[in-house]
């Protein structure tokens, strides 16, 4: 419409002058010439000169309309959020650490690895930073090699690449020799290797090598370097510094004990960036930290949040003045150094609005049915024991250890479950015939101590051993392990299956590190049935483990929960945000995202589950759509609807399903979806009869 009317405007407006603006303006702009000017400028791409003619006003007026429109909020200039945030983070890093330059690649789009993205960015940076006549010292590492592979610089003269450390006999792909030669090849430079090992046997060998004229010459070249390129390595357990074999692990332990947090060009540094002295110092042949600091341009390329402490240390030590990293790591570095304004600024900018003002009647407390906040667990247990007296009874008068009335029997493996409270009906609702024999009850979100767990083991024992099944949390593991040790001393054999169904909580390589959430429901059911059928302890353990391996859960929280003692939210989830990968203890999720539709959220979860569950068309699954406490059944069914659609589209059959409150997190608003990938054995066990307060199958 605008494009049709404006040419006529153009013909008439020029002559009629400013008084006719209202006539010339199309109706849709109301009486606001600002909006019209903006439309013409931003949407139609007209020049200010054209607009002045169309509107019949001076060019200066157009200019002031456009400026005013921005200040009045008619126009918001917005950059694409991920690019904006990486730019903002780069600027902040540059300012905070006084860097010469900083390049931050946008956060993960999921399509390429971090090393790959850093390699590309580093390659582009090298093309800008490297000049004719430069001598560049190149250290070693996966990221450094990725940069060399992504660099292609032509037209430079008299560039020299010097290997920054000696070589290695370790067999990884990114050795010092290879990194330096790849970079020399990529830049058409002259290559100078250090023809000595990076680590030699002792100090005498080191000084002998350094006295060799050839190596002296090579070191002199290294001393002439005016630029350096290196990675930063973390010392965390899974870092390549341990796996590459470059350093002996005994030596690394020595540096760790002296508080080293990172490695820069083969040298260990502490959190403040000071050199950490150790046994390798006199055995290392390579650039020293002092030499590195004297080089004019010191380009570090590193990313990954596990490297944040190491990169921060290198920045504090002044080893870096050009940093290339990714947005998540950059933000982590700033947060770790106490710069948190960046988060607020980014949140404001990407939302295009100021902070949401709190209404004057803002609540400070959540309403709850309480008598004494310190007695909630005990009062609840009193109620539970009255309500479900047919199923459970206290052991030796303690409500913190409960036994199934029709559970334990001679010759049967006993099943003991347990954990903190706040998850009701978990765990005590699953104690009964065909399910768990006993449950140990902790405080809110806290593992029970070993005492009640041991009582449960004694009560559940039928002479064939006891199986412990509980979620993988540090506290639960320590208390249940202590109890298992005590049970062994009493000749009660104990086997343990830790549930780890929350696939959002750790990547697949770290499956054992994942936590157990609502999928517990399936594991308890399978384990209970196996025990009830009279399988041996190791058979019960094996099938429960299989169920755990085939159960996949992801939770999403819309609002956090509040503890009875504080009656406040543990943290806040923004008005338009959700937490994906939510656990069941009110701890934060794995990532925060914008609020989406129910189907979009379900799709996010299901896509992730499909990524790990190796299900074929025709396979059968069990589905659990579980409320975290405050989300009503109505919404759970909306989620289930989409789960069924997605499974149906893959021709996967839902053999059985549960929708409701099965493993909650106090009053959290949110839900989790669990899928158990069935086989014949698991299907049979799932159908096995059971009778407890929260689950009955006939």
């Amino acid at each position: 419409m605008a494009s049709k009317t404006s040419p006529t405007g153009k013909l008439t407006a020029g002559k009629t002058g400013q008084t006719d603006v209202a006539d010339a303006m199309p109706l849709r702009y109301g009486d606001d010439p600002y909006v019209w000017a903006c439309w013409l400028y931003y949407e139609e791409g007209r020049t200010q000169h054209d607009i002045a003619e169309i509107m019949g006003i001076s060019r200066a007026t157009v200019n002031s309309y456009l400026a005013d429109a921005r200040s009045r909020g008619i126009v918001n200039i917005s950059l694409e959020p991920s690019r904006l945030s990486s730019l903002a983070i780069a600027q902040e890093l540059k300012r905070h650490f006084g860097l010469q330059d900083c390049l931050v690649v946008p956060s993960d789009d999921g399509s390429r690895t971090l090393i790959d993205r850093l390699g590309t960015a580093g390659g582009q940076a090298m093309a800008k930073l490297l000049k004719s006549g430069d001598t560049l010292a190149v250290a070693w590492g996966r990221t450094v090699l990725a940069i060399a592979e992504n660099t292609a610089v032509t037209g430079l003269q008299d560039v020299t690449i010097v290997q920054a450390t000696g070589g290695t006999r370790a067999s990884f792909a990114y050795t010092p020799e290879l990194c330096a030669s790849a970079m020399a090849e990529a830049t058409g430079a002259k290559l100078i290797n250090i023809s000595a090992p990076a680590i030699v046997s002792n100090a005498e060998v080191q000084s002998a090598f350094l006295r060799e004229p050839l190596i002296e010459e090579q070191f002199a070249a290294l001393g002439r370097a005016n630029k350096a390129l290196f990675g930063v390595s973390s010392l965390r357990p899974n870092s390549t510094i341990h796996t590459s074999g470059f350093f002996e692990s005994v030596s690394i332990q020595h540096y760790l004990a002296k508080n080293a947090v990172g490695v820069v060009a083969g040298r260990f540094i502490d959190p403040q960036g000071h050199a950490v002295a150790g046994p390798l110092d006199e055995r290392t042949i390579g650039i020293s930290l002092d030499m590195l600091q004297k080089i004019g341009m010191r380009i570090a390329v590193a990313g990954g949040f596990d490297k944040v402490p190491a990169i921060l240390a290198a920045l504090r030590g002044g080893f870096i003045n050009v940093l290339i990293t990714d947005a998540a790591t950059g933000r982590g570095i700033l947060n770790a150094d106490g710069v948190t304004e960046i988060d607020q600024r980014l949140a404001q900018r990407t939302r295009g609005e100021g902070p949401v003002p709190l209404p004057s009647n803002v609540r400070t407390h959540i309403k709850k049915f309480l008598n004494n906040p310190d007695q909630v667990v005990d009062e609840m247990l009193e109620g539970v024991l009255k309500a479900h007296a047919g199923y459970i009874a206290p052991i030796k008068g303690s409500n913190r250890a409960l036994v199934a009335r029709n559970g334990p029997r001679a010759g049967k493996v006993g099943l003991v479950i347990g954990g903190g409270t706040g998850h009701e009906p978990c765990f005590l609702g699953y104690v009964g015939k065909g399910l768990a024999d006993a449950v140990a009850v902790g405080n809110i979100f806290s593992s029970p101590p070993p005492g009640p767990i041991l009582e449960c083991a004694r009560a559940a024992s039928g002479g064939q051993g006891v199986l412990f099944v509980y979620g993988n949390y540090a506290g639960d593991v320590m208390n249940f392990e202590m109890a298992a040790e005590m049970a062994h001393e009493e000749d009660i054999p104990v086997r343990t299956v830790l549930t780890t169904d929350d696939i959002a909580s750790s990547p697949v390589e770290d499956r054992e590190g994942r936590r157990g959430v609502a999928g517990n429901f399936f594991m308890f059911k399978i384990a209970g049935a196996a025990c009830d059928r009279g399988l041996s302890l190791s058979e019960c353990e094996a099938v429960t483990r299989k169920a755990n391996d085939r159960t996949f859960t992801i939770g999403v929280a819309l609002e956090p929960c509040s503890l009875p003692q504080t009656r406040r939210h543990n943290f806040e989830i923004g008005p338009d945000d959700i937490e994906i990968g939510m656990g069941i203890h009110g701890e934060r999720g794995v990532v925060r995202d914008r609020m989406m539709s129910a189907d979009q959220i379900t799709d996010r979860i299901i896509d992730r589950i499909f990524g790990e569950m190796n299900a074929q068309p025709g396979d059968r699954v069990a589905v659990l759509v579980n409320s975290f406490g405050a989300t009503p059944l109505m919404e759970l069914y909306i989620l289930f609807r989409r789960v069924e659609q997605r499974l149906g589209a893959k021709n996967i059959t839902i053999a059985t399903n549960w929708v409701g409150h099965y493993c909650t997190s106090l009053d959290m608003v949110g839900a989790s979806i669990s899928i158990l990938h069935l086989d014949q054995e698991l299907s049979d066990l799932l159908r096995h009869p059971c009778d407890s307060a929260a689950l009955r199958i006939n």
Partner: protein
Amino acid sequence: MAETASRFLSRMFQLIAMAMQAEKDHLSELDGAVGDADHGITMALGFAAVNSAVARLDLDKVLPSEVLSAAASAFLDAVGASTGPLYATAFRKAAQVLKQDESLSPAGQVAIVEAIAQGIKDRGKGQRGDKTMLDAWIPAMEAAVAARERGAEPDEMWRDIVAAGETGANATRSMVAARGRAARLGERSLGHVDPGAASAVIILRAMRDTFA
């Protein structure tokens, strides 16, 4: 001598319990950033239980090692969780060490700090830099050992121990959690002081106020 020593420990646990009660909300807030916001509640509850268990002892008769054993069991039974086994193991280990020398001399005080740090390390299988209470306890232990080696006066020794613990706890701000629930937060644990390290400093300060 033994009576006085046991009363010293009783006094120490009272100071810890009072400080935990006072810092309860602060600790829970720290925990809210990385965990489930109950660390203050747990610590206050645990040391309140320790106090009532120690109050039931006849302090004129029991040995300091017995006070620590009682404290270990009371703490564990009251809280469970992860702090329960960690501090229970720590106090039990300290009790074993005290059996060699029940005098609570400065060297004995160092031995207690050492035993606590070692007990937590053994039970939690953790190390320095994991962003846990060990990041306060290990530097504190090192400061204690260093002070013993140079024969420092108790005042100076405890000033060093507390300072090292405080520095260590503050350093957790720039660490990425490797253990406990916060480990699953990845980079989101950055920028927050670990609540377990913060409560360790509270214990160290109370120990200083008792002994120095």
